[in-house]
């Protein structure tokens, strides 16, 4: 539901990393979005298109790498993938786990046309 403000945040952060003339050259913004980040990728793409329109970043598009959930069990030590909404170790059923991936909502890099 908050993909619009996330799209605006992405534009702001990208602008902090390039000069005004480079903004027009940005082709791709690479993101990592975890399954637990509460972001619907399609909705984010839609919102990003809306906020970039008419701006200096209108040539940019998002390239999203979706990150699945993994956790390490504090009991048996195993690292395993988790299904969404299941927060216990699939190997030993212990719920005392540390999430390793799945919370990401990161801008990784941007690609510019020369």
């Amino acid at each position, binding site marked *: *539901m*908050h993909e619009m*403000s*996330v799209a605006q*945040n*992405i534009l*702001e*952060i*990208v602008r902090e*990393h*390039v000069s005004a003339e480079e903004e027009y050259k940005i*082709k791709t913004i690479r*993101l990592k979005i975890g399954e*637990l*980040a*509460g972001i619907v990728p399609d909705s984010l793409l839609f919102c990003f298109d809306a906020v970039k329109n008419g701006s200096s970043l209108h040539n940019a598009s998002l390239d999203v790498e979706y990150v699945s959930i993994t956790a390490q069990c504090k009991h048996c030590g195993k690292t395993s993938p988790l299904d*969404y*909404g*299941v*927060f*216990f170790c699939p190997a030993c059923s212990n*719920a*005392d786990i540390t999430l390793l991936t799945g919370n990401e*909502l*990161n*801008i*990784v*890099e*941007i*690609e*510019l*046309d*020369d």
Partner: protein
Amino acid sequence: MSVITIERKVLAKNDEIAGLNRELFRKNNIFAFNLVSSPGSGKTSILERTLEYFNGKVKVAVIEGDVQTDLDAQRIAKYNVPAVQIVTRGGCHLDAPLINDALKNIDLKSIQLLIIENVGNLVCPANYDLGETLKIVVASTTEGDDKPLKYPEMFRNASVLIINKIDLLPYVNCNIETLKHNALRINPRLIIFETSCATNAGITDWCDWIVKQIPPR
């Protein structure tokens, strides 16, 4: 083609201001909690019972978040505590900058407890750190016993679960043991309170627990 590495969290700005808020709470010895739930589970009623119980003995301020209207702040104002209303006008959650602005209207030196009532929504508020000491999630018996399974992130990120409207248990399709089991399956560290704002059941236990969380001056 050239590549610029950024490696930044999209919510970094929010998290940075959340850090400032947290530092303000620490410096002023304030216990601040972020009260979250779906709409209508009784957040404001729990607040009212809590303020009645404290009856001025604990110095409280309240930040009310709503999509529209200041109806909740009006309810809280009756208890003679400072209340700041944030109207998000469609926004589905409170964020750290909104809280930082609201804090400018509260005399932090004069309070021990800050209660932030978030927008009724079990999805988005889970992802926004406000700088609070901890998140407290309310689930009412009228919502059934499967909410923790449907909204796992919120129950995972909360430290406390209040099961509200327990007076209605005989009339609704909710098994409280199943609800607790589901919640603890998602988050085994949850502290659980059972309350009714109609009968005041559980309010004493809940309020006594709050008092223990307030840092000494």
